[in-house]
């Protein structure tokens, strides 16, 4: 098997807004994602993290450059590339179990198999008892667990996660980070995880990709070799976090200098 699941090559993305304004979101982004890698993308807000993830998922087309997934260019969504969104993405009119089975339903799987698989993945995320509940009956953290179960039930090769824990409180967030690592260690999917929390990135990632401010470029790639579970009290943990925070601060500082120069 090829060492790389996905190869992102010279991606440029320019959006044209409804008013006809061009927004340069990504500039010359190249990235190789290894099999079983846990990659975190951090960067100032608006630097194009979501855009990059959506291009990898096939939800958005790059202006130039290519994403090659398992040897094939990505041009449209592919169920081997699963995605989890920050916002609410469960169907509010379906039960939790039916939400988890959604991908299998699209694949035309019989109802018995859908039930079985959705139970298996609800067990995995600890929501066995909520199979017949509706999403509005769940807390934010539980809903993201369901979203994770739904993505995993489709058995993707790569899991693209766009700030999935961004809306959760600090405690729930740490709980879910731990749980995600447990799941990942169990099935070793490849994960590309976007976050604006440096702490989260250092806790989770094998590799952290630091992006520069808009138009997003790759500023630095940091390998983290600390064994898991990582201890936030470890001095190395603190040093790494501080180093990445410094980079981000520089980016944001540049941003505000630009703003001052422009008289904003």
């Amino acid at each position, binding site marked *: 098997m090829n060492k790389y699941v996905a190869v992102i090559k010279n991606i440029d993305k320019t959006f044209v807004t409804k008013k006809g304004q061009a927004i340069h979101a990504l500039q010359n982004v190249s990235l190789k994602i290894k099999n079983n890698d846990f990659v975190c993308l951090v960067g100032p807000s608006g630097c194009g993290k979501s855009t990059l993830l959506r291009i990898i998922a096939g*939800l958005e087309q790059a202006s130039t450059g290519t994403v090659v997934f398992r040897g094939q260019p990505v041009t449209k969504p592919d169920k081997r*590339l699963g995605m989890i969104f920050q916002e609410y993405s469960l169907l*509010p009119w379906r039960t939790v179990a039916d939400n988890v089975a959604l991908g299998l*339903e*699209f694949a035309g799987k019989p109802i018995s198999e859908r039930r079985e698989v959705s139970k298996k993945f609800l067990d995995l995320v600890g929501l066995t008892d909520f199979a017949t509940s*509706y999403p*509005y009956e769940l807390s934010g953290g539980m809903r993201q667990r369901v*979203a994770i179960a739904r993505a995993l039930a489709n058995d993707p090769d790569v899991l693209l996660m766009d700030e999935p824990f961004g809306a959760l409180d600090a405690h729930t967030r740490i709980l879910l980070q731990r749980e995600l690592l447990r799941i990942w260690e169990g099935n070793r999917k490849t994960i590309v995880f976007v976050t604006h929390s440096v702490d989260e990135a250092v806790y989770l990632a094998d590799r952290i990709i630091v992006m520069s401010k808009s138009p997003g470029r790759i500023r630095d790639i940091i390998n983290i070799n600390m064994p898991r579970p990582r201890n936030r009290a470890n001095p190395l943990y603190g040093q790494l976090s501080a180093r990445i925070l410094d980079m981000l601060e520089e980016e944001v500082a540049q941003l505000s200098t630009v703003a001052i120069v422009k008289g904003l």
Partner: protein
Amino acid sequence: MNLKSLYKFAIIMVVPLFLFSLWWYVAVQIKNPVILPNVEDVIELLSNPTNNLISMGSLASNIIVSLVRVIVGYCLAALIAIPMGILMGYYSLVHNLLNNFIGLFRPIPPLAWVPLVLAWFGVSSLATLTGIEHGQWYIYLNNIKLSMIFIIFIGAFFPILTSSIYGVQSVNKTLLDSALVLGAKSSEVFGKILLPAAAPSIINGMRTGLGVAWMCLVAAEMLPGSLSGVGYLITHAYTIARTDIVIAGMISIGLVGALLDYLFRFIENKKFSWQHLAR
């Protein structure tokens, strides 16, 4: 019934009881049934809905005729407005193509169409359209004039169209994206995500549309060629100074309208409770 619901019932009844007493009192004072008939007379009429009235058929049979007219016009409106609204909500090209044009027609009150509608359709009815010229079916179909259907259609069309457009446009894009990454085909995104997500808004528009259609009824039944229906009953009773029948007819229109609205609300609460509960 516990004390709380008894209390709630009492609260609901305060205003109607007050108005009824006022009506009763004023009617007794002025002693002129043409201006204001006695409460008893109207209640008498309402409690015997199958009695034949001034050779115009009974209250009940006229309500049924009216209902059939409204349902025909309304269904036609829904059948056109819903698909059109969904297309306009989904494809911005279709939206741009039609929206301004439709926007010109929206503010025209259904009644303003009457002269044009008469010129177009005259007294032709569903019987003319289907070519049936005698027998029991002719009597039924001839009761449903095209002009009436058109007025009712216009009334129901715009609320349904507007809310269908809005319903589709306001579907959370993340829901569509998440279905796509799970491997949904376009038809599945449409049928399993877009439609169910837009359904509460569409149903809401259908409810409003039915209300407006029902309100257009009297206008529609005042058109020439109309020989039945609650609207006709009211206008005809007025010409022979039977104000009690007028009021009984008005109350029936109100009651039936409220009942239809209640039916829709019931469906909304049963099938779409997720919409209010979703956060």
